[in-house]
């Protein structure tokens, strides 16, 4: 009998059936991967076990007893804890206060016993081998450190099942390595881990078994030794992923559309210079914190402190003015789609047309028919899966949201498109579609600057890649010299660029 069993779990959300009769068995002490495209239901399944969501049908059995985690608190009492992707703590409180939030040590008068609080927090952190100062405010920690604190909280409260929801999605390389070490240590202690991710390398490095979900259905559960990355990708998307040479590389490039000379911003980056031609996709690589997004923001007029020259179509741009950047027909698909890219209280149509609104407006009036046609055209072109254009964007999956965030700028008919982490947190199928789209856009003569932390996608799609390190341009690699090792070397500063 399995240690943990999901039996016919069903969960509905507005507009989608997130899980449809999913049954999975998990062995004690295993690291079990849950993979699938975004919207496949993998996070939902984890959250049901952790008491965040209530299932609409089905049952969970832990050690052959049916359990009903009605809240995260109830799940904790059953020994189930979840390490969340996003803020799970109060950022305005310290590590120790957060760690003991549910059960603060009190003295006889009912006051918080601060010494006991600190000792307890320190013990919990020591348990996972972390030396984070318990007095630090959570808000000042990096995402990686915060995850460690979450894990410390889980282990410290005696959890024997820990769910990790895409734990490495915003971690640096060093932090990821640290996390891997910890995951192995937890496994060695007999803790059962459920690892939600769509990074296949990680799954093969860490997990014993893998369950694949697709569109809310269970596809297969296999031991990791019996499968391969290609096989998993096929099972996730239900079709072969075409890996082919991007078409834009075959065409000759046009005039220089974007030229950046000696661009600097105090404390962020200095002396950046490069150019992008019409029809070209140029990659911009670098570790987290290298200043890539900051450069993109400066080009787009979002950095009032930026100095230097940004030329579009051969004309110098007034820096620090979004309107100047827009007038020069440029667009920026930002890194964080929920915070910067989309207005979640609006529907798909309104989000698609938000940047293009001036094109749809005459004498202040929005041409509603033209707006609807525009939204429909791009929803169709980008294959956005939504019940209707009037559906709230918040109820769409990450991949579909990202498509709308892209559609917004394509609809604006910009010639220079900067995309910052265009495939972060979205599934393999949607990724392939977005690569295809960027290739098409380059084919139409747009100049594309693509910022990404995923080297395979830069290598696959770009004609050349610029590498930034600590606010400076560390080098540039032409397609002929692409390799993960060469790029990584430049990013981390271990080798000098040949270029």
């Amino acid at each position, binding site marked *: 009998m399995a240690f943990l069993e999901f039996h016919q779990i069903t969960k*509905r*959300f*507005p*507009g*989608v*059936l997130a899980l449809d009769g999913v049954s999975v068995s998990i062995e004690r002490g295993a690291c079990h991967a849950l993979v699938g495209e975004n919207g496949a239901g993998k996070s939902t399944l984890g959250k049901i076990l952790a008491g965040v969501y209530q299932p609409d049908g089905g049952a969970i059995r832990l050690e052959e007893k049916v359990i009903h985690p009605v809240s995260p608190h109830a799940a904790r009492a059953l020994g189930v804890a979840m390490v969340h992707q996003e803020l799970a703590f109060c950022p305005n409180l310290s590590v120790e206060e957060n760690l003991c939030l549910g059960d603060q040590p009190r003295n006889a008068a009912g006051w918080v016993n601060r010494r006991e609080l600190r000792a307890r927090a320190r013990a919990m952190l020591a348990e996972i081998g972390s030396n984070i100062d318990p007095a630090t405010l959570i808000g000042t920690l990096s995402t990686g450190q915060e995850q460690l604190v979450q894990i410390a909280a889980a282990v410290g409260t005696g959890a024997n099942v820990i769910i990790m929801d895409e734990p490495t999605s915003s971690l640096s390389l060093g932090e990821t390595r640290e996390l891997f070490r910890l995951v192995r240590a937890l496994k060695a202690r007999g803790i059962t881990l459920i690892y939600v991710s769509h990074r296949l390398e990680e799954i093969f490095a860490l997990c014993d078994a893998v369950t694949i979900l697709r569109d809310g259905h269970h596809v297969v559960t296999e031991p990791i030794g019996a499968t391969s990355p290609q096989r998993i990708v096929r099972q996730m998307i239900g079709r072969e992923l075409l890996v082919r040479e991007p078409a834009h590389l075959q065409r000759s490039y046009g005039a220089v559309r974007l030229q950046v000379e000696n661009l600097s911003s105090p404390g962020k980056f200095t002396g950046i210079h490069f150019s992008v031609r019409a029809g070209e996709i140029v990659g911009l690589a670098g570790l987290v914190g290298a200043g890539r997004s900051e450069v993109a923001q400066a080009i787009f007029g*979002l950095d009032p402190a930026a100095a230097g020259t940004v030329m579009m179509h051969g004309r110098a741009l007034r820096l620090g003015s*979004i*309107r100047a950047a*827009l007038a020069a027909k440029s667009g*920026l698909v*930002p890194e964080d789609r929920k*915070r*910067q*890219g*989309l*207005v*979640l*209280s*609006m529907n798909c149509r*309104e989000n698609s047309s*938000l*940047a293009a*609104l*001036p094109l*749809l*407006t005459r004498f*202040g*009036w*929005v041409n*509603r028919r033209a707006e609807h046609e525009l939204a429909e055209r791009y929803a169709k072109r980008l294959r956005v899966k939504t*019940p209707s254009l009037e559906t709230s964007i918040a*109820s769409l999956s990450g991949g579909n949201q990202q498509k709308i965030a892209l559609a*917004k700028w394509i609809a604006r008919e910009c010639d220079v498109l900067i995309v910052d982490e265009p495939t972060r947190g979205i599934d393999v199928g949607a990724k392939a579609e977005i690569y295809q789209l960027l290739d098409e856009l380059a084919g139409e003569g747009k100049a594309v600057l693509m910022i990404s932390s995923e080297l395979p996608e830069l290598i696959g799609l770009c004609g050349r890649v610029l590498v930034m390190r600590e606010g400076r341009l560390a080098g540039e690699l032409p397609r002929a010299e692409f390799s993960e090792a060469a790029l990584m070397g430049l990013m981390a500063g271990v080798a000098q660029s040949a270029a």
Partner: protein
Amino acid sequence: MSSRLRSLFGFQESGLLLVVLVLGLLLAGFGGSVQQPVLVRGADGEVTPQLNAAGEKVLVTRNRFLNARNLAQLAKDTSFIGIMAVGMAVVIISGGIDLSVGAIYALAAVVSALVLRHLGETGASAGMSVLLAVVVCVGMGLLCGLVNGGLIVGLRMHPFIITLGTMAIFRGIALVASGGQSIGDFPPALQKIVKFEVGDGLTLVPPFVMVLVMIAGWIFLSRLAAGRRVFAVGGNEVAAQYSGIQVQKVKLGVYLWSGGLAGLAALLAMGYYGSASSGDANGYELNVVAAAVVGGSSLTGGRGSALGAMLGALIIQMITTGIIILGIDQNYSQIITGSVVVAAVALDKFNTWLAQRRLARRAD
């Protein structure tokens, strides 16, 4: 439910209309009846009670709630709050709040009353005085809105703090300017227009203006690009900025709009009551916010409508009227109004939840 009925009640404000209808039916049913004199319009245009042969007033029995005079009164009472609520809805949709509307109302009324009184002494024409009243009163409102917006944008401070401050400042200026006196003896031209009577003595100019304002607000919010920008800023300021929207300009605009409408409400009230003092519209800001929120505006921004705000004002006024009609002790009035505000918003949340569940069902 038939599909036609559903499409009729499918729109956003249908729940509010239903509340208005139910309240109306309740008041009509439980209000009882009242004896009213029959009014006739004489050859001179004056409306007087009709007299019988014995020289006594002719009386008819009418429903206490459902009679023309009471409904006109209700519409008139709603309109001052209703006009400001449309302005407030726009501010709230943008993610802000304007606590100074009552004070703007008082300041605009006092200043224009002073100007009009001065004008009366110089013997300007009637048309001139009305035009000047409109320009001064609405202009004063816009000016106050500009001050609010300018401070909020310039100092990058929360609108709650700024308008809490200007609320006291504006009312203080009105107090100083009026010397604490009620200012009433200005030319009657404005009064004649605002109190223009229809039928047997019904004053419908203020509600008419309110409906115009609501329609203007509806067009602004749902048809104009400027309105869309207000929703975008209220929904996600950063994303709006990234989309090329000039967030600060939008913010400045909503406070101008709110201030201007407070000035317009003051103009109508001044014309209707024939006087202005610095104590006018005391505490109105809370009723106006309540009307907008009952009307479906979300205090977190990004959601709301002009029709909703007007209906919200109507619901609040119906409760106040209802307390009088049903003969409930006036002392309970605040308790009841407060409870209704909370209940209405809770009902709206429930309605949203129902709609979401329906959507989820349809997906299966």
